[in-house]
């Protein structure tokens, strides 16, 4: 057994794990983070995607011990404290970016990672950026639409510079919707 500690969705966990334990098993079986699912189990489908120190990884292709000391965000850690959905979650809901929903946790985490790096992706960049995630229902059209909508809503709602933050603040003080 190897002692590991990691922060998952803002909570620190210390555990003894067998070295062969996959991160996704640790998240699901030990920590109860069953929002992260196992799809293909061959590192192809991306359903198990989580953020490891802010970057997307496939939790079935990394050992829990490799994530020792890391900060992990799962689909369960995206929504705000009051339960308000993350813009990407909201966009998948509004744009019907899912049917059966199995790929959705990974798809959303991959999209969050993509938008962190590229706040204004083209459709081609969205498709390329999500190449590590497979969906067998939607044909991807609405997923791309959802990511595009999420990008737009994040650009307009999140102040990205001190100037725009000030402007947004001034706008909200005046009751102006931006």
């Amino acid at each position, binding site marked *: 057994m190897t002692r590991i500690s990691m922060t998952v969705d803002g909570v620190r966990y210390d555990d003894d794990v067998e070295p062969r334990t996959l991160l996704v098993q640790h998240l699901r079986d030990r920590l109860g983070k069953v929002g992260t699912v196992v799809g293909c189990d061959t590192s192809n489908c991306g359903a198990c995607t989580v953020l490891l120190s802010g970057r997307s990884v496939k939790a079935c*292709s990394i050992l829990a011990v490799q994530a020792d000391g890391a900060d992990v965000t799962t689909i369960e850690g995206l929504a705000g404290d009051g339960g308000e959905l993350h813009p990407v979650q909201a966009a998948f809901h509004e744009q019907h970016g899912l049917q059966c929903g199995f790929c959705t946790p990974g798809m959303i985490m991959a999209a969050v990672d993509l938008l962190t790096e590229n706040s204004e992706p083209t459709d081609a960049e969205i498709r390329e950026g999500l190449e590590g995630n497979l969906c067998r229902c939607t044909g991807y059209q609405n997923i791309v639409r959802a990511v595009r909508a999420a990008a737009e809503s994040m650009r307009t709602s999140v102040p990205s510079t001190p100037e725009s933050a000030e402007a947004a603040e001034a706008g909200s003080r005046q009751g102006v919707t931006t």
Partner: protein
Amino acid sequence: MIPAPFDYTRVATVEDAVAALAGAGEDGKVLAGGQSLLPMLRLRLAAPTMLVDLGGVAELRGVRDDGDALIIGAMTTHDEVVKHPLVREHAPLIAQAAETVGDRQIRHLGTFGGSLAHADPAGDLPGVALALDAVMSVAGPGGMRDVRASEFFVDYFTTALGPGDVLVSVRVPKLTGWTTHYEKFHQMAQSWSVVGVAAAVRRSNGSIAEARVALTNMGVTPVRAHGVEEALAGAPATADAVATAAARAADGASPLTDGVASAEYRTHLASVLTKRAVMAAGGL
């Protein structure tokens, strides 16, 4: 599936890694990013008794300028390689090829050195290392040694690395005055190369002064297309001359037939893709 049990140690220095591997004997295995090893462990195609995790070895990570060459740390991730300003400036061929590896998630964990040490015949970076005449710096029980790319890839999934060796860094000569291109042919997003071609071209006036061409997945190891290189040296920089040279792409290669493609098809692809790669590299 869950991997078979193994012992695990996370080391902080290359010296500790070499010591841990020496203690583990024949069944020890280095864990880099794990993006090839983990699937193999899960399928139980590999069952090492001890994994030595290099994830905590800071000295193995990063890219530095060493005058006429870049030194790329073996544990530098594909994502870091793709975005690194030094790589983009002095070895854009590596950045271009690394960007085609797997998908974003895989590139966040998978490493440059791991890809080379894994030596998958369909892996894109071994061919690039061969085209660029990279030199691998290896730490082992007998100390440090250098291995040229042409001697590093010895067989199917087999390199010059012994069971006690750790790939530390890769020295990539800067190709000043050259232009490059990596042409990858694959059937689906995120899938392996059916065939890939790494090309570097140095043009002089209206002709091609020198060219280097290496092929991915045209044999059990990456191979240099020497016939093409000879035909291009001094050739006019025209589509016809490139096509004539590219017809020799598979000379001396022994492509495999597998579930993805026949040897015959790979031979055909090698010429087609070599032409495209050289044309793109030469700005034609």
